[in-house]
């Protein structure tokens, strides 16, 4: 599965994932060096999407491990099917000719594979997406980087299982807690920021069929302006921009104005405090002014 840089860029274009050259190059290096890729960035900038589109581009399976507090090896790696083992013992209690031995009970048919083991045993190089790794416990993180360094696991009853193919590993983090140096050392690193206005226009046009050019441009500027407000509790994500665009297309709108922004605000600002902040600090009039001025609304967000 040798992928070249032009192939990768073409792939991103094909699946509609708009990114800049340095992002594409970092992903290319991940594939070429067979190193895990750690992606950090604010919620909604396309970190998880990167794992999905990579699976699309490479035409392979996506194996996803969603991290949460309390996640342990039994949910991430493997677990013995305890109930099935018990049933087997119960069923064979009266059958003297069929001996239930320990080897029988601890064979692969009683092993429940979890995402990490699935990725290691996969015949074709899969994409392993370890999502929101910052939410798992530090103990699990330590276990994780052991797996990611050797790509092999030991099941005491079965022995060591080595990866058939080193999976493409994408880890995402919202940077809510500092990850350990050990984990970071094993990964290449990519920080994704919100897209520039120009890139956001391209994303909207690629993902929302039927959206008018002018509407896409005006929406991107409004969203960039909102993201510049440091006091917002939650900045609008790309997914929310796309939902907003779909809603406006469904409403058959081809232009944006202050009133329309006010009416559909709940699609981009999801807390009451943020909506009130918008009305007090910017308001429909502020949006009108910005759209009239024709500037980019201060869309200084860097390209991702």
């Amino acid at each position: 599965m040798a992928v070249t840089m032009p192939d990768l860029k073409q792939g991103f274009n094909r699946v509609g994932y708009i990114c800049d050259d340095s992002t594409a190059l970092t992903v290319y290096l991940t594939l070429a060096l067979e190193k895990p890729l750690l992606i950090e960035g604010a919620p909604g900038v396309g970190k998880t999407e990167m794992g999905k589109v990579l699976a699309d581009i490479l035409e392979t399976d996506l194996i996803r491990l969603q991290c949460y507090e309390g996640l342990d090896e039994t949910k991430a790696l493997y677990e013995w099917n305890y109930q099935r083992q018990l049933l087997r013992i119960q069923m064979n209690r009266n059958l003297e000719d069929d001996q239930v031995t320990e080897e029988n009970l601890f064979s692969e048919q009683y092993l429940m594979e979890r995402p990490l083991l699935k990725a290691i045993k996969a015949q074709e190089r899969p994409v392993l997406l370890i999502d929101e790794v910052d939410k798992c416990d530090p103990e699990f993180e330590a276990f994780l980087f052991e797996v990611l360094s050797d790509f092999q696991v030991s099941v005491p009853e079965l022995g060591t299982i080595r990866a058939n193919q080193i999976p493409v590993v994408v880890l995402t983090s919202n940077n809510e807690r500092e990850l350990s140096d050990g984990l970071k050392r094993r990964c290449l690193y990519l920080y994704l920021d919100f897209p520039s206005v120009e890139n956001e226009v391209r994303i909207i046009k690629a993902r929302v069929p039927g959206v008018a050019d002018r509407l896409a441009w005006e929406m991107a500027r409004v969203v960039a302006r909102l993201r510049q407000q440091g006091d917002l509790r939650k900045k609008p994500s790309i997914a929310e921009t796309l939902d907003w665009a779909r809603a406006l297309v469904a409403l058959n709108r081809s232009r944006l104005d202050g009133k329309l922004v006010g009416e559909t605000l709940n699609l981009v600002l999801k807390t009451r405090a943020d909506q009130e902040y918008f009305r007090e600090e910017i308001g429909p009039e502020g949006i009108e002014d910005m759209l009239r001025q024709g500037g980019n609304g201060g869309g200084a967000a860097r390209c991702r």
Partner: protein
Amino acid sequence: MPLKEKLPDSHLEENLVTFTNLLRQAGVPVSTTEAMDALNALQQVDMSSREEFKTALQAALIKNRRDQGYFNRLFDYFFASPETRIREEKKAAVYKKKYEAGLDQASKELQFKGESLQLSASELAQYNSMSPEQRERLQVFMHKTETGVNVEERFRPILEAVVKSHLRYCRTNQNRDKKEGGSSSASASGAVPGGSGSGPGSGRAALSEMDMQAITASKLPEAEQLLQRLSKKLAIQILRRRRSGPRSGPLDLRRSLRDNMRYGGTIFKLKHKPRRRSREQIVLLCDVSASMQHYSTFVIQFMHGLRETVREFSCFSFSDDLENITPDLKNRGGLQQLLDRVIRRSDTWGGGTNLGLSLRSLMEKYPDLLNRRTSVIVVSDTRTIALDYSIKELGRLKDRVRRIVWLNPLPGEQWPEYRSVQSMSALVEMWPCNTISQLEAVLSGRL
């Protein structure tokens, strides 16, 4: 992109090693594995493209957004184009010549009885960096001393000591002014001459690395926003940690047996005990003596953002005695107002510090706050009168609470100079804490 068989530049490895060393000097942790990854990454890119070269190095060496600013500046400096390098070298040569001439001139101006004073190069440079008025004042002082009655050669060491002390004083003032101007103490400026603050290495990142004492009134609103953001982030983190996982506790054998009676006593489904976690009780003790009030105000602000995550949060200020300021924190209206209301109104503001007496007051007047769930956070530079008594009281407090975390604004390198620091750090967890980023790092690991 085909794998290049050979590196085109035989000096690449050496340059890369030097570059990673520079990054380390700037405080960016880079391991040998990462340096090797960088070398491997460079073999995969078109090294004639500066952008690709930079991206490959960045992906392999930089694992934190706040380090990207340092990386950018160091990269631009170290991997400068030949034209830029020649230009910079010319500039450096001119600067060196001017610097040496300045030292000669300073040495001539600082004479006693026709002979130059014994001053180091850095002291002479300090003299040159002073304003003309300051230099003139010093010269007038030296002249008056020299022409005084009965002033002989044996006065030379005394004069030298006075001049050195004055230069040191001026340097301290200049450093403080520079910090107030927004320069970051942790910037890579030592490694990068003329490096300008750009990217994440400046702005908010610089503010979080600035000595809290040096944050001026004009920067307070920005600092307040930063503190709110960081404490909100930490609050989310703490609350998330408290949410129990699917298998939070140890095996509950009694419940497992009872629940599995329906399967004829076979343990078919395991039951686990819930994880026991009680919310912590936090007592914050802030030294509000003159040298500490700035630090204390910032810590109070930060902790205030976390109050919903703890069972009980109490805050006291102390200098020569203890004062409960918890009620003052309720209707908070900003960092500046907090400073006005809490610190300036405090009876104890600006006084000397008697830690021992303050701790004794805490234990006698507020015994209910001190139990095995209580974490005490002390913000103080440990300088107190009645040190031995204070150490004894601190030991008594330690026996009554879960733990004591001490945030000390004195820089770590100065700790060995203070007996108070050495004695108290043996009793409590003591952490250097004079910047917002240190404050965040210490508290995020301890709450």
